[in-house]
């Protein structure tokens, strides 16, 4: 499908439109139609980065092209302007490469197409089922009411010949796909479910036709026909497939919901006029207008207006978020109250929502290690079943009672039909599909199946204090003056020094100064001493800011102030020492409040038997106070960034399966080293590459939800795998007649057909139970 996004605007789409209508501009404009295009092409044959310049140059030289930017990584080029697709392709070909338009039909369109295709296939299968069962059911009733379908007289032969031909019609109209698939697979030296069904039903039909045409070729007692089995099996398996399609539709509800969040149109302001366009046509830096009640169409930064935005659909956070100028807004969220104008910063595939959809889709299709055994078995399954079928027939022929050939045919057919590789193959992916989708609905993005599986086994969880347990927005609470006499002077010097630091606590001091309209001074010779503090010069004064260790190293006398600092720390505040010219000027305390729901979330984790450990770079007293408030008995204070990774290693060494939760930036090494790294996202920022699981909302309940959904999914996978294994392991010997010598029971191929058809349906339906998983909102 072609990608030309046609945008019929009221104004010219030419590059000249914003300027005065010069004659040269008019002349160029006249050659173009008044239609603006935003197209993407995939480039073939571009093997080196130097190709980029050539391709972009050729495109830019094409009449009507405003800009052409190539992404060498994915070999795509985005062209804006009014040139036609064919002209762009020619331009690329002229410099020795091939170009093709990329299908950029929106995800919603793709979903609609998929649903339409599934619906059409469902209807076809139901029609096939109806045809097959129209013959199969009366034959079944006949066999039950009248008895065995034997061929003894010429009339019976003629009658069964007619039935045989009708059955062939069923095989052709309702079961053709099985036979064609089986034949193509056979030619390809592979075997699949079609092979088993085609062989099973084909054997029953061929044997029956032999009985009809040459009854003397088989013993008298074995002159049965099995046309009802052929018709019923085809009908039941078609019915099972149709119901499976319906059930499968439900497994992708979460992704449908995410895709459904995308707005279809956007109102952009171009040349002081509002234009309504499709979201795929919104360009970077476009000014977008959103009224109350409308969805945010692309990501951006608010330029004008004030509103509250419901982000619950992405983050799971139920409370609307206030947005004003310079705040970020995210595609797919709902503008609740005010009208805003914002500048588009991420469009198309780059929006947070598009990335989330991609990530969820990828994770839904990835398999956790638990599914690998089923994969190995699936790969060998069908030929093994065929061998068992032959062995079963041989066993009946050698050791079975008369009519041995009839028993052999029935058992061979039943073995082929009852075996269900689909149930095995579907057991893991269906559960992952629903589980990952449910997690996404709760604002938990799981990177892949492996992370999902490991998260379910976590025994120890390390939580970073700042920003994870606490709000991560510390505030200055106390300034205790020492040598200094003026609090304002202290704050001015301290804030000026801290304005150069990237430490989260530094921001609190700077903000405190700015709130009091204190002007910051120029800082020289700034030096950050990791894990201790910072130092610099300002107005010929030597400034030093940090913890007690730094003060001791630098020989600052703290006599009389250590006790005051400790007392602040016991109140869960972080005291820091500020020295000027070698003398203590003040103690500045900063406090970072614990998030309102951290305590209950930590209880949930502990309730699941998980050992919770808090790590912080803060001093021992503050750490102890915060840990006590949060209900954590194990904590490590004064931890340097590299020590976090060491703690992960240490816990792993003691046999724990370790989860690490942090902000994804400072904690990257520890997150990467942990068995499962959880990054607490800031709202909808999903660009956290080092995490296995990203929590879109700040609440630690997301963490407990992630573990709960992982456990539920793994439990579901195990049920599915157990069911599929037991079904096949028990069903195949049963079908082969293992119970016959003891109880005289031999399974009918029709029952086997029904069991097979509904075994995979059972797996899909069981996976669907995960849809009822409920995340706990904060």
């Amino acid at each position, binding site marked *: 499908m072609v990608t030309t996004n046609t945008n019929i605007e009221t104004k010219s789409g030419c590059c000249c439109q914003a300027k005065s209508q010069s004659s040269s501009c008019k002349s160029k404009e006249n050659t173009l139609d008044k239609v603006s295009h935003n197209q993407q092409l995939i480039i073939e044959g571009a093997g080196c980065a130097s190709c980029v310049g050539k391709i972009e140059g050729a495109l830019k030289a094409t009449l009507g092209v405003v800009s052409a930017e190539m992404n060498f990584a994915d070999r795509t080029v985005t062209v804006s302007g009014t040139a036609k697709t064919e002209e762009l392709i020619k331009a690329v070909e002229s410099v020795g490469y091939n170009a093709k338009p990329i299908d950029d039909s929106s995800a919603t369109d793709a979903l609609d197409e998929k649903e339409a295709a599934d619906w059409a296939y469902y209807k076809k299968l139901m029609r096939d089922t109806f045809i097959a069962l129209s013959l199969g059911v009366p034959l079944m009733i006949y066999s039950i009411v009248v008895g065995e379908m034997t061929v003894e007289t010429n009339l019976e032969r003629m009658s069964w010949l007619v039935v045989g031909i009708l059955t062939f019609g069923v095989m052709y109209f309702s079961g053709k796909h099985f036979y064609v698939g089986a034949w193509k697979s056979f030619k*390809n030296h592979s075997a699949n479910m079609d092979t088993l069904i085609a062989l099973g039903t084909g054997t029953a039909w061929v044997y029956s036709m032999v009985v009809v045409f040459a009854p003397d070729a088989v013993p008298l007692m074995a002159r049965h026909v099995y046309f009802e089995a052929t018709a019923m099996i085809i009908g039941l398996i078609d019915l099972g497939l149709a119901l499976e399609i319906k059930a499968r539709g439900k497994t992708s509800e979460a992704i449908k919901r995410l895709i459904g969040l995308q707005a279809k149109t956007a109102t952009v302001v171009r040349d002081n006029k509002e234009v309504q366009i499709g979201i795929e046509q919104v360009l970077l830096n476009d000014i977008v207008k959103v009224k109350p009640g409308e969805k945010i169409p692309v990501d951006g930064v608010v330029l004008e207006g004030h509103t509250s935005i419901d982000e619950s659909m992405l983050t799971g956070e139920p409370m609307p978020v206030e947005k004003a100028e310079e705040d970020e807004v995210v595609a797919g969220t709902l503008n609740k109250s005010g009208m805003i104008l914002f500048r588009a910063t991420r469009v198309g595939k780059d929006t947070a929502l598009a990335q989330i959809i991609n990530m969820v889709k990828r994770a839904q299709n990835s398999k956790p290690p638990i599914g690998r055994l089923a994969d190995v078995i699936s790969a060998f399954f069908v030929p093994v079943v065929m061998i068992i079928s032959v062995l079963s027939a041989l066993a009946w022929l050698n050791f079975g009672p008369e009519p041995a050939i009839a028993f052999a045919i029935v058992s061979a057919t039943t073995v082929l039909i009852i075996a269900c590789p689909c149930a095995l193959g579907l057991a893991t992916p269906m559960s992952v599909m629903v589980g990952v989708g449910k997690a996404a609905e709760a604002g938990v993005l799981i990177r892949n199946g492996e992370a999902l599986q490991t998260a379910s086994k976590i025994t120890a969880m390390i939580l970073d204090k700042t920003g994870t347990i606490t709000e991560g927005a510390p505030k200055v609470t106390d300034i205790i003056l020492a040598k200094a006499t003026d609090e304002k002077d202290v704050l001015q010097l301290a804030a000026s020094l801290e304005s150069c630091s990237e430490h989260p606590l530094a921001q609190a001091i700077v903000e405190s100064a700015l709130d009091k309209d204190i002007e910051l001074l120029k800082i020289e010779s700034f030096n950050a001493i990791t894990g201790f503090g910072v130092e610099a010069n300002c107005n010929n004064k030597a400034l030093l800011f940090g913890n007690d260790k730094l003060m001791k190293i630098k020989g600052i006398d703290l006599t009389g102030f250590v006790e005051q600092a400790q007392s602040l720390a016991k109140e869960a505040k972080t005291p820091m020492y500020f020295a000027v010219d070698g003398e203590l000027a003040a103690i500045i305390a900063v406090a970072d409040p614990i998030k309102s729901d951290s305590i209950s979330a930590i209880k949930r984790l502990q309730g699941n038997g998980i050992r919770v450990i808090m790590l912080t770079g803060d001093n021992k007293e503050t750490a102890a106070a915060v840990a006590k408030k949060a209900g954590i008995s194990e904590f490590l204070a004064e931890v340097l960034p590299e020590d976090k990774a060491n703690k992960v290693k240490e816990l792993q060494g003691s046999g724990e399966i370790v989860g690490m939760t942090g902000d994804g930036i400072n904690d990257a090494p520890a997150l990467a080293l942990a068995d499962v790294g959880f990054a607490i996202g800031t709202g909808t920022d999903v660009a956290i590459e080092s995490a296995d699981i990203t929590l879109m909302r700040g609440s630690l309940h997301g963490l407990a939800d992630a573990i709960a959904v992982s456990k539920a999914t793994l439990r579901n996978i195990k049920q599915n795998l157990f069911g599929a294994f037991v079904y096949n392991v028990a069903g195949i010997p049963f079908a082969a007649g293992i119970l016959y010598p003891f109880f005289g029971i031999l399974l009918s191929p029709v029952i086997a057909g029904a069991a097979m058809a509904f075994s995979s349906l059972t797996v899909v339906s069981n996976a669907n139970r995960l849809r009822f998983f409920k995340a706990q909102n904060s």
Partner: protein
Amino acid sequence: MMIINLLGLMLIALIVWWFWLYKPNKTIVQNSEVLIEVKDGVYSPSSIQVSASQPVTLKFMRKDQSPCAETMLIPSLDISEQLKLNEITQITLLNLSPGEYEFHCQMQMYRGVLKVV
């Protein structure tokens, strides 16, 4: 009965040879792209050979409505793609190391192998 048993054992030997031991001919990709038809339970071609020095584009044309054909996985490359019905889905692979890369549907009924030499 002996003959029947021998025929049965020969049939088993044939199954083993045909499905496991036989090495089918590979489609050797010359021009860096290969069109793979996804239909009737098989990828055609299902055995593809490419040179390690060249990027290869696998163009999957799904013609099978069955949901089994919908997802294509290359587990060793951590690739999973949804194949749209009656449309080409392109996957370009760069810098592949020599070796065999299996690709298959979720249930492993559709199976193929990409051999990089």
